[in-house]
Protein backbone atom coordinates (compact mmCIF):
# COMPACT_ATOMS: atom_id res chain seq x y z
CA UNK A 1 0.00 0.00 0.00
CA UNK A 2 1.09 3.57 -0.65
CA UNK A 3 1.43 6.24 2.03
CA UNK A 4 1.38 9.89 0.99
CA UNK A 5 2.01 12.73 3.37
CA UNK A 6 1.49 16.23 2.08
CA UNK A 7 2.05 19.60 3.72
CA UNK A 8 2.08 18.15 7.20
CA UNK A 9 2.27 20.62 10.09
CA UNK A 10 2.41 19.12 13.59
CA UNK A 11 2.15 20.75 16.97
CA UNK A 12 2.75 20.01 20.64
CA UNK A 13 0.46 22.59 22.20
CA UNK A 14 1.46 25.87 20.60
CA UNK A 15 4.91 24.67 19.52
CA UNK A 16 5.12 23.72 15.85
CA UNK A 17 7.48 20.78 15.33
CA UNK A 18 6.86 19.80 11.68
CA UNK A 19 6.54 22.33 8.86
CA UNK A 20 4.98 21.69 5.46
CA UNK A 21 6.47 18.24 5.33
CA UNK A 22 5.85 16.08 2.26
CA UNK A 23 6.84 12.40 1.94
CA UNK A 24 5.73 9.39 -0.10
CA UNK A 25 6.24 5.71 0.56
CA UNK A 26 5.37 3.43 -2.34
CA UNK A 27 4.18 -0.15 -2.23
CA UNK A 28 7.06 -2.52 -1.54
CA UNK A 29 9.47 0.28 -0.83
CA UNK A 30 11.55 1.20 2.21
CA UNK A 31 11.88 4.92 2.84
CA UNK A 32 14.38 5.78 5.55
CA UNK A 33 14.17 8.89 7.64
CA UNK A 34 17.52 10.00 8.97
CA UNK A 35 18.22 12.87 11.29
CA UNK A 36 19.61 13.78 14.66
CA UNK A 37 17.84 13.56 17.96
CA UNK A 38 15.02 16.08 18.13
CA UNK A 39 14.77 16.51 14.37
CA UNK A 40 11.10 15.45 14.37
CA UNK A 41 11.26 11.88 13.07
CA UNK A 42 9.16 10.36 15.83
CA UNK A 43 6.68 13.20 15.51
CA UNK A 44 6.15 12.30 11.84
CA UNK A 45 5.21 8.74 12.78
CA UNK A 46 3.03 9.85 15.68
CA UNK A 47 1.21 12.28 13.42
CA UNK A 48 0.48 9.48 10.97
CA UNK A 49 -0.91 7.40 13.84
CA UNK A 50 -3.14 10.27 14.94
CA UNK A 51 -1.33 10.80 18.23
CA UNK A 52 -0.17 14.36 17.61
CA UNK A 53 -2.22 17.39 16.69
CA UNK A 54 -1.61 18.25 13.05
CA UNK A 55 -2.98 19.53 9.77
CA UNK A 56 -2.26 18.60 6.18
CA UNK A 57 -3.05 15.46 4.26
CA UNK A 58 -2.11 11.87 5.09
CA UNK A 59 -3.38 9.33 2.55
CA UNK A 60 -3.22 5.59 2.95
CA UNK A 61 -3.95 4.11 -0.47
CA UNK A 62 -6.82 6.36 -1.41
CA UNK A 63 -8.14 6.83 2.10
CA UNK A 64 -7.57 10.10 3.95
CA UNK A 65 -6.57 9.14 7.51
CA UNK A 66 -5.67 12.59 8.79
CA UNK A 67 -8.38 13.58 11.24
CA UNK A 68 -9.50 10.05 12.05
CA UNK A 69 -9.48 8.97 15.69
CA UNK A 70 -6.21 7.33 16.73
CA UNK A 71 -7.94 3.97 17.25
CA UNK A 72 -9.41 4.01 13.72
CA UNK A 73 -6.12 4.49 11.90
CA UNK A 74 -4.66 0.99 12.45
CA UNK A 75 -7.91 -0.43 11.03
CA UNK A 76 -7.00 1.13 7.69
CA UNK A 77 -4.02 -1.17 7.42
CA UNK A 78 -1.12 0.54 9.11
CA UNK A 79 1.15 -1.00 11.71
CA UNK A 80 3.32 0.97 14.12
CA UNK A 81 6.42 -0.09 16.04
CA UNK A 82 7.09 2.85 18.33
CA UNK A 83 10.43 4.06 19.56
CA UNK A 84 11.36 2.19 22.74
CA UNK A 85 8.97 -0.61 21.65
CA UNK A 86 6.17 0.27 24.08
CA UNK A 87 5.32 -3.34 24.82
CA UNK A 88 2.72 -4.03 27.46
CA UNK A 89 5.52 -5.10 29.79
CA UNK A 90 3.28 -6.63 32.46
CA UNK A 91 1.45 -8.77 29.89
CA UNK A 92 2.76 -12.01 28.45
CA UNK A 93 4.13 -12.43 24.94
CA UNK A 94 0.91 -14.16 23.98
CA UNK A 95 -1.27 -11.39 25.38
CA UNK A 96 0.76 -8.78 23.49
CA UNK A 97 0.17 -10.71 20.28
CA UNK A 98 -3.52 -11.06 21.11
CA UNK A 99 -3.73 -7.30 21.35
CA UNK A 100 -2.10 -7.13 17.94
CA UNK A 101 -4.81 -9.41 16.61
CA UNK A 102 -7.76 -7.49 18.05
CA UNK A 103 -8.55 -5.94 14.68
CA UNK A 104 -8.05 -8.89 12.34
CA UNK A 105 -9.24 -11.55 14.75
CA UNK A 106 -7.12 -14.42 16.01
CA UNK A 107 -6.31 -17.08 13.51
CA UNK A 108 -3.62 -19.72 13.69
CA UNK A 109 -2.59 -19.18 10.09
CA UNK A 110 -1.32 -15.64 10.58
CA UNK A 111 0.24 -16.66 13.89
CA UNK A 112 2.21 -19.32 12.04
CA UNK A 113 3.49 -16.74 9.60
CA UNK A 114 4.60 -14.56 12.49
CA UNK A 115 6.41 -17.44 14.19
CA UNK A 116 8.15 -18.20 10.92
CA UNK A 117 9.59 -14.68 10.97
CA UNK A 118 10.30 -14.70 14.72
CA UNK A 119 10.77 -18.31 15.88
CA UNK A 120 12.05 -17.33 19.35
CA UNK A 121 8.66 -15.87 20.28
CA UNK A 122 6.98 -19.23 19.97
CA UNK A 123 8.97 -20.59 22.90
CA UNK A 124 8.25 -17.56 25.06
CA UNK A 125 4.48 -17.24 24.77
CA UNK A 126 3.82 -17.50 28.50
CA UNK A 127 6.66 -15.21 29.53
CA UNK A 128 6.01 -11.67 30.76
CA UNK A 129 7.19 -9.51 27.88
CA UNK A 130 9.07 -7.08 30.14
CA UNK A 131 11.44 -9.92 31.01
CA UNK A 132 12.52 -10.59 27.41
CA UNK A 133 15.94 -9.48 26.20
CA UNK A 134 16.14 -6.25 24.24
CA UNK A 135 16.32 -8.00 20.90
CA UNK A 136 13.42 -10.29 21.71
CA UNK A 137 11.37 -7.32 22.84
CA UNK A 138 12.01 -5.61 19.53
CA UNK A 139 10.95 -8.73 17.67
CA UNK A 140 7.78 -8.93 19.74
CA UNK A 141 7.04 -5.28 19.01
CA UNK A 142 7.40 -5.98 15.28
CA UNK A 143 5.43 -9.20 15.50
CA UNK A 144 2.64 -7.43 17.35
CA UNK A 145 2.42 -4.80 14.63
CA UNK A 146 2.48 -7.46 11.90
CA UNK A 147 -0.54 -9.15 13.49
CA UNK A 148 -2.50 -6.30 11.90
CA UNK A 149 -1.39 -7.58 8.47
CA UNK A 150 -0.48 -4.00 7.59
CA UNK A 151 0.02 -2.65 4.09
CA UNK A 152 2.25 0.06 5.54
CA UNK A 153 4.61 -0.41 8.47
CA UNK A 154 6.16 2.38 10.55
CA UNK A 155 9.38 1.47 12.37
CA UNK A 156 10.91 3.94 14.82
CA UNK A 157 14.57 3.18 15.53
CA UNK A 158 14.11 -0.59 15.66
CA UNK A 159 17.85 -1.26 15.99
CA UNK A 160 18.41 1.15 18.88
CA UNK A 161 20.58 -0.52 21.51
CA UNK A 162 20.67 -3.95 19.88
CA UNK A 163 23.58 -6.32 19.26
CA UNK A 164 24.80 -6.60 15.65
CA UNK A 165 23.34 -10.09 15.24
CA UNK A 166 19.92 -8.82 16.26
CA UNK A 167 20.22 -5.85 13.94
CA UNK A 168 20.91 -8.28 11.11
CA UNK A 169 17.84 -10.38 11.79
CA UNK A 170 15.62 -7.32 12.00
CA UNK A 171 17.07 -6.20 8.68
CA UNK A 172 16.17 -9.59 7.21
CA UNK A 173 12.59 -9.22 8.34
CA UNK A 174 12.37 -5.76 6.80
CA UNK A 175 13.62 -7.14 3.51
CA UNK A 176 11.10 -9.99 3.57
CA UNK A 177 8.26 -7.60 4.23
CA UNK A 178 9.42 -5.35 1.43
CA UNK A 179 9.34 -8.31 -0.94
CA UNK A 180 5.78 -9.00 0.14
CA UNK A 181 4.84 -5.50 -0.98
CA UNK A 182 4.61 -3.78 2.39
CA UNK A 183 5.50 -0.09 2.29
CA UNK A 184 7.91 0.69 5.10
CA UNK A 185 8.79 3.98 6.73
CA UNK A 186 11.96 3.32 8.71
CA UNK A 187 13.42 5.83 11.13
CA UNK A 188 17.05 5.53 12.14
CA UNK A 189 19.79 7.76 13.48
CA UNK A 190 22.68 5.75 12.08
CA UNK A 191 23.01 5.51 8.35
CA UNK A 192 24.91 2.22 8.39
CA UNK A 193 21.89 0.57 10.00
CA UNK A 194 19.65 1.39 7.06
CA UNK A 195 21.87 1.45 4.03
CA UNK A 196 21.39 -2.22 3.11
CA UNK A 197 17.58 -2.12 3.20
CA UNK A 198 16.67 1.38 2.04
CA UNK A 199 15.29 2.22 -1.38
CA UNK A 200 15.26 5.92 -0.67
CA UNK A 201 16.50 8.15 2.12
CA UNK A 202 15.12 11.43 3.44
CA UNK A 203 17.09 13.69 5.73
CA UNK A 204 15.01 15.40 8.41
CA UNK A 205 16.13 18.51 10.24
CA UNK A 206 14.09 20.85 12.43
CA UNK A 207 10.87 19.44 11.08
CA UNK A 208 11.78 19.90 7.40
CA UNK A 209 12.77 17.43 4.74
CA UNK A 210 16.23 18.83 3.95
CA UNK A 211 17.05 16.38 1.19
CA UNK A 212 15.63 13.23 -0.33
CA UNK A 213 17.31 10.81 -2.70
CA UNK A 214 17.68 7.25 -3.99
CA UNK A 215 20.01 5.11 -1.94
CA UNK A 216 22.53 4.86 -4.76
CA UNK A 217 22.86 8.64 -4.93
CA UNK A 218 24.01 8.73 -1.30
CA UNK A 219 27.53 7.69 -2.18
CA UNK A 220 27.94 10.98 -4.04
CA UNK A 221 26.95 13.01 -1.00
CA UNK A 222 29.50 12.39 1.77
CA UNK A 223 29.11 15.96 3.03
CA UNK A 224 25.40 15.56 3.47
CA UNK A 225 25.85 12.37 5.43
CA UNK A 226 28.44 13.96 7.65
CA UNK A 227 26.33 17.02 8.19
CA UNK A 228 22.96 15.48 8.96
CA UNK A 229 23.83 12.22 10.56
CA UNK A 230 27.11 13.02 12.20
CA UNK A 231 29.20 10.27 10.73
Amino acid sequence: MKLSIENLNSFYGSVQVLRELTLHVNTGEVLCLLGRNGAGKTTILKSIMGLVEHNGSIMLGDCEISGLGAHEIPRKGIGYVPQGRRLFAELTVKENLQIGMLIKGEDSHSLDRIFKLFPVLKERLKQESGTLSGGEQQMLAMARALCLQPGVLLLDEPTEGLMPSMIASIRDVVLKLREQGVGILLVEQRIDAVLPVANRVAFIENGYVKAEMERDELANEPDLMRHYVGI
Partner: protein
Amino acid sequence: MDFGPFLFLATLEGLVQAAVLCLIALGLSLVFGVMRVVNVAHGEFYMLGAVLAWWITGWFAGNPAIGFVAAIIIGPLLVGVIAYFVERLILRKVEYDPEATIVATIGILYIVQQLVLITFGPDARPVDTPFYFLIEFPWFGYSGYKLLVICAAIMLLLAVWYVITRTRLGLVMRATQYDRETAQNFGIAVNQVYAIVFATGAGLAAVAAVLIVPIQQAHYLMGRDPLLLSFIVVIIGGLGSIRGTLVAALIIGLSDGIISVFFSPTLAKMVSTLLVAMVLVFKPEGLFGSRSQL
Protein backbone atom coordinates in the same frame (compact mmCIF):
# COMPACT_ATOMS: atom_id res chain seq x y z
CA MET B 1 -21.49 -15.81 75.63
CA ASP B 2 -17.96 -17.18 75.93
CA PHE B 3 -15.07 -15.44 74.25
CA GLY B 4 -14.68 -18.05 71.50
CA PRO B 5 -18.22 -17.93 70.13
CA PHE B 6 -18.26 -14.17 70.60
CA LEU B 7 -15.14 -13.83 68.46
CA PHE B 8 -16.74 -16.11 65.88
CA LEU B 9 -19.81 -13.88 65.79
CA ALA B 10 -17.64 -10.78 65.48
CA THR B 11 -15.69 -12.41 62.65
CA LEU B 12 -18.89 -13.18 60.77
CA GLU B 13 -19.99 -9.57 61.16
CA GLY B 14 -16.57 -8.48 59.99
CA LEU B 15 -16.80 -10.76 56.96
CA VAL B 16 -20.11 -9.21 55.94
CA GLN B 17 -18.48 -5.78 56.16
CA ALA B 18 -15.44 -6.99 54.27
CA ALA B 19 -17.50 -8.60 51.52
CA VAL B 20 -19.42 -5.42 50.82
CA LEU B 21 -16.33 -3.29 51.14
CA CYS B 22 -14.49 -5.51 48.65
CA LEU B 23 -17.14 -4.79 46.03
CA ILE B 24 -17.23 -1.05 46.63
CA ALA B 25 -13.47 -0.66 46.77
CA LEU B 26 -12.96 -2.84 43.71
CA GLY B 27 -15.17 -0.43 41.76
CA LEU B 28 -13.12 2.55 42.94
CA SER B 29 -9.88 0.72 42.23
CA LEU B 30 -10.87 -0.30 38.70
CA VAL B 31 -11.78 3.27 37.81
CA PHE B 32 -8.57 4.60 39.23
CA GLY B 33 -6.45 1.82 37.77
CA VAL B 34 -7.70 2.00 34.20
CA MET B 35 -8.72 5.65 33.92
CA ARG B 36 -6.49 7.32 36.52
CA VAL B 37 -9.61 9.05 37.76
CA VAL B 38 -10.13 9.57 41.49
CA ASN B 39 -13.89 9.22 41.71
CA VAL B 40 -14.98 11.20 44.75
CA ALA B 41 -18.62 10.50 43.79
CA HIS B 42 -18.17 6.74 44.15
CA GLY B 43 -20.05 6.65 47.47
CA GLU B 44 -23.03 8.33 45.82
CA PHE B 45 -23.36 5.53 43.29
CA TYR B 46 -23.47 3.20 46.29
CA MET B 47 -26.15 5.35 47.93
CA LEU B 48 -28.08 5.51 44.68
CA GLY B 49 -28.03 1.70 44.49
CA ALA B 50 -29.52 1.47 47.99
CA VAL B 51 -32.22 4.08 47.38
CA LEU B 52 -33.16 2.51 44.05
CA ALA B 53 -33.39 -0.86 45.79
CA TRP B 54 -35.91 0.61 48.21
CA TRP B 55 -37.81 2.21 45.34
CA ILE B 56 -37.85 -0.93 43.19
CA THR B 57 -38.83 -3.31 46.00
CA GLY B 58 -41.77 -0.95 46.58
CA TRP B 59 -43.25 -2.04 43.22
CA PHE B 60 -43.67 -5.60 44.41
CA ALA B 61 -46.12 -6.32 47.19
CA GLY B 62 -46.16 -9.78 48.71
CA ASN B 63 -43.04 -11.92 48.56
CA PRO B 64 -40.02 -9.70 49.38
CA ALA B 65 -37.68 -12.06 47.55
CA ILE B 66 -39.18 -11.11 44.17
CA GLY B 67 -38.71 -7.40 44.84
CA PHE B 68 -35.16 -8.05 45.99
CA VAL B 69 -34.24 -10.02 42.89
CA ALA B 70 -35.69 -7.24 40.74
CA ALA B 71 -33.73 -4.66 42.74
CA ILE B 72 -30.40 -6.43 42.48
CA ILE B 73 -30.75 -6.68 38.71
CA ILE B 74 -32.37 -3.36 37.83
CA GLY B 75 -30.70 -1.19 40.49
CA PRO B 76 -27.06 -1.68 39.49
CA LEU B 77 -27.99 -1.55 35.80
CA LEU B 78 -29.68 1.81 36.26
CA VAL B 79 -26.74 3.11 38.26
CA GLY B 80 -24.39 1.86 35.56
CA VAL B 81 -26.36 3.71 32.90
CA ILE B 82 -26.32 6.90 34.95
CA ALA B 83 -22.57 6.54 35.48
CA TYR B 84 -22.10 5.92 31.77
CA PHE B 85 -23.71 9.26 30.96
CA VAL B 86 -21.79 11.01 33.73
CA GLU B 87 -18.61 9.73 32.10
CA ARG B 88 -19.65 10.80 28.61
CA LEU B 89 -21.02 14.20 29.56
CA ILE B 90 -18.60 15.30 32.27
CA LEU B 91 -15.36 13.34 32.65
CA ARG B 92 -14.75 13.13 28.91
CA LYS B 93 -15.35 16.86 28.58
CA VAL B 94 -12.54 17.62 31.03
CA GLU B 95 -10.34 15.09 29.22
CA TYR B 96 -9.72 13.10 32.40
CA ASP B 97 -7.42 15.80 33.69
CA PRO B 98 -6.53 14.61 37.23
CA GLU B 99 -7.35 17.86 39.01
CA ALA B 100 -10.43 18.65 36.95
CA THR B 101 -11.88 15.18 37.51
CA ILE B 102 -11.55 15.52 41.28
CA VAL B 103 -13.42 18.83 41.21
CA ALA B 104 -15.96 17.42 38.75
CA THR B 105 -16.66 14.31 40.82
CA ILE B 106 -17.07 16.42 43.97
CA GLY B 107 -19.71 18.32 42.03
CA ILE B 108 -21.36 15.06 40.94
CA LEU B 109 -21.35 13.92 44.57
CA TYR B 110 -23.47 16.89 45.67
CA ILE B 111 -25.74 16.83 42.64
CA VAL B 112 -26.60 13.14 43.10
CA GLN B 113 -27.04 13.59 46.83
CA GLN B 114 -29.35 16.58 46.50
CA LEU B 115 -31.35 15.04 43.66
CA VAL B 116 -32.00 11.98 45.79
CA LEU B 117 -32.96 14.19 48.74
CA ILE B 118 -35.42 16.13 46.59
CA THR B 119 -36.86 13.04 44.93
CA PHE B 120 -37.02 10.53 47.76
CA GLY B 121 -36.86 12.70 50.87
CA PRO B 122 -34.59 12.68 53.92
CA ASP B 123 -35.98 9.62 55.70
CA ALA B 124 -34.08 6.39 56.18
CA ARG B 125 -35.90 3.71 54.20
CA PRO B 126 -35.98 0.08 55.25
CA VAL B 127 -35.92 -2.74 52.73
CA ASP B 128 -37.31 -6.15 53.70
CA THR B 129 -34.89 -9.04 53.94
CA PRO B 130 -35.65 -11.25 50.93
CA PHE B 131 -35.94 -14.27 53.21
CA TYR B 132 -35.75 -14.86 56.89
CA PHE B 133 -33.73 -17.84 57.79
CA LEU B 134 -31.51 -18.48 60.81
CA ILE B 135 -28.47 -20.69 60.60
CA GLU B 136 -28.25 -22.42 63.99
CA PHE B 137 -24.76 -22.58 65.39
CA PRO B 138 -24.36 -24.31 68.79
CA TRP B 139 -23.98 -20.92 70.51
CA PHE B 140 -26.26 -18.62 68.54
CA GLY B 141 -28.42 -18.38 65.47
CA TYR B 142 -27.03 -16.28 62.64
CA SER B 143 -28.87 -14.57 59.81
CA GLY B 144 -28.81 -16.76 56.72
CA TYR B 145 -29.17 -13.61 54.65
CA LYS B 146 -25.87 -12.24 55.92
CA LEU B 147 -24.15 -15.45 54.91
CA LEU B 148 -25.76 -15.09 51.50
CA VAL B 149 -24.27 -11.59 51.26
CA ILE B 150 -20.82 -13.04 51.85
CA CYS B 151 -21.31 -15.76 49.23
CA ALA B 152 -22.78 -13.38 46.66
CA ALA B 153 -19.87 -11.00 47.09
CA ILE B 154 -17.36 -13.82 46.64
CA MET B 155 -19.09 -14.96 43.45
CA LEU B 156 -19.18 -11.44 42.04
CA LEU B 157 -15.51 -10.92 42.83
CA LEU B 158 -14.63 -14.19 41.11
CA ALA B 159 -16.68 -13.13 38.10
CA VAL B 160 -14.87 -9.79 37.88
CA TRP B 161 -11.55 -11.53 38.29
CA TYR B 162 -12.42 -13.93 35.50
CA VAL B 163 -13.43 -11.13 33.15
CA ILE B 164 -10.27 -9.16 33.82
CA THR B 165 -7.80 -12.01 33.53
CA ARG B 166 -9.42 -14.40 31.05
CA THR B 167 -11.50 -12.50 28.53
CA ARG B 168 -10.90 -10.24 25.59
CA LEU B 169 -12.63 -7.34 27.32
CA GLY B 170 -10.32 -7.81 30.30
CA LEU B 171 -7.26 -7.84 28.05
CA VAL B 172 -8.43 -4.63 26.40
CA MET B 173 -8.94 -3.07 29.84
CA ARG B 174 -5.48 -4.06 30.99
CA ALA B 175 -3.86 -2.81 27.80
CA THR B 176 -5.63 0.51 28.27
CA GLN B 177 -4.49 0.65 31.88
CA TYR B 178 -0.83 0.00 31.05
CA ASP B 179 -0.45 2.20 27.98
CA ARG B 180 -3.39 4.15 26.69
CA GLU B 181 -1.60 5.52 23.62
CA THR B 182 -0.26 2.17 22.42
CA ALA B 183 -3.65 0.58 23.04
CA GLN B 184 -5.10 3.00 20.49
CA ASN B 185 -2.45 1.97 17.98
CA PHE B 186 -4.04 -1.48 18.02
CA GLY B 187 -7.55 -0.29 17.43
CA ILE B 188 -8.71 -0.07 21.04
CA ALA B 189 -11.29 2.69 21.42
CA VAL B 190 -9.99 3.96 24.73
CA ASN B 191 -12.99 6.24 25.28
CA GLN B 192 -15.36 3.30 25.09
CA VAL B 193 -13.22 1.31 27.50
CA TYR B 194 -13.33 4.22 29.93
CA ALA B 195 -17.11 4.48 29.72
CA ILE B 196 -17.50 0.74 30.32
CA VAL B 197 -15.07 0.76 33.24
CA PHE B 198 -16.70 3.76 34.86
CA ALA B 199 -20.16 2.23 34.55
CA THR B 200 -18.89 -1.11 35.88
CA GLY B 201 -17.20 0.57 38.84
CA ALA B 202 -20.42 2.38 39.76
CA GLY B 203 -22.43 -0.80 39.18
CA LEU B 204 -20.21 -2.71 41.63
CA ALA B 205 -20.85 -0.11 44.31
CA ALA B 206 -24.57 -0.33 43.58
CA VAL B 207 -24.63 -4.13 43.86
CA ALA B 208 -22.90 -3.84 47.22
CA ALA B 209 -25.57 -1.37 48.31
CA VAL B 210 -28.47 -3.59 47.25
CA LEU B 211 -26.90 -6.47 49.18
CA ILE B 212 -26.47 -4.41 52.33
CA VAL B 213 -29.70 -2.46 52.31
CA PRO B 214 -31.83 -5.18 53.98
CA ILE B 215 -29.33 -4.96 56.87
CA GLN B 216 -28.82 -1.19 56.97
CA GLN B 217 -31.39 1.30 55.72
CA ALA B 218 -31.24 3.41 52.57
CA HIS B 219 -30.53 7.06 53.23
CA TYR B 220 -29.30 9.92 51.09
CA LEU B 221 -26.19 10.47 53.23
CA MET B 222 -25.16 6.83 53.44
CA GLY B 223 -22.43 7.16 50.77
CA ARG B 224 -19.92 8.94 52.94
CA ASP B 225 -18.58 6.16 55.16
CA PRO B 226 -18.11 3.62 52.35
CA LEU B 227 -16.33 6.27 50.30
CA LEU B 228 -13.90 6.93 53.12
CA LEU B 229 -13.39 3.25 53.81
CA SER B 230 -12.85 2.36 50.18
CA PHE B 231 -10.29 5.15 49.81
CA ILE B 232 -8.54 3.72 52.85
CA VAL B 233 -8.65 0.27 51.27
CA VAL B 234 -7.41 1.42 47.90
CA ILE B 235 -4.51 3.33 49.46
CA ILE B 236 -3.49 0.43 51.68
CA GLY B 237 -3.81 -2.07 48.84
CA GLY B 238 -1.88 0.05 46.38
CA LEU B 239 -3.57 2.34 43.87
CA GLY B 240 -4.85 0.41 40.90
CA SER B 241 -3.89 -3.01 42.27
CA ILE B 242 -6.89 -5.32 42.30
CA ARG B 243 -5.27 -7.99 44.42
CA GLY B 244 -4.14 -5.37 46.92
CA THR B 245 -7.61 -3.87 47.03
CA LEU B 246 -9.19 -7.21 47.90
CA VAL B 247 -6.62 -8.05 50.58
CA ALA B 248 -6.90 -4.59 52.13
CA ALA B 249 -10.71 -4.72 52.05
CA LEU B 250 -10.57 -8.01 53.91
CA ILE B 251 -8.21 -6.58 56.54
CA ILE B 252 -10.15 -3.35 57.00
CA GLY B 253 -13.58 -4.98 56.84
CA LEU B 254 -12.67 -7.68 59.34
CA SER B 255 -10.90 -5.36 61.76
CA ASP B 256 -13.74 -2.87 61.47
CA GLY B 257 -16.33 -5.56 62.19
CA ILE B 258 -14.44 -7.23 65.02
CA ILE B 259 -13.33 -4.05 66.78
CA SER B 260 -16.84 -2.61 66.46
CA VAL B 261 -18.33 -5.67 68.17
CA PHE B 262 -15.76 -5.87 70.98
CA PHE B 263 -15.09 -2.20 71.56
CA SER B 264 -16.71 0.58 69.57
CA PRO B 265 -17.19 1.65 65.95
CA THR B 266 -15.25 4.82 66.71
CA LEU B 267 -12.19 2.84 67.76
CA ALA B 268 -12.58 0.75 64.59
CA LYS B 269 -12.42 3.88 62.42
CA MET B 270 -9.40 5.12 64.39
CA VAL B 271 -7.56 1.86 63.75
CA SER B 272 -8.31 2.00 60.01
CA THR B 273 -7.11 5.56 59.80
CA LEU B 274 -3.98 4.69 61.74
CA LEU B 275 -3.30 1.82 59.34
CA VAL B 276 -3.58 4.15 56.37
CA ALA B 277 -1.23 6.63 57.99
CA MET B 278 1.31 3.88 58.61
CA VAL B 279 1.07 2.59 55.07
CA LEU B 280 1.51 6.10 53.71
CA VAL B 281 4.59 6.63 55.87
CA PHE B 282 6.28 3.26 55.48
CA LYS B 283 5.07 1.96 52.11
CA PRO B 284 3.49 4.85 50.20
CA GLU B 285 2.91 2.74 47.09
CA GLY B 286 0.65 0.44 49.15
CA LEU B 287 1.00 -3.22 50.07
CA PHE B 288 0.70 -4.52 46.51
CA GLY B 289 1.21 -1.35 44.52
CA SER B 290 4.38 -1.77 42.53
CA ARG B 291 3.90 0.17 39.31
CA SER B 292 0.44 -0.31 37.85
CA GLN B 293 0.02 -4.00 38.41
CA LEU B 294 -3.07 -6.11 38.78
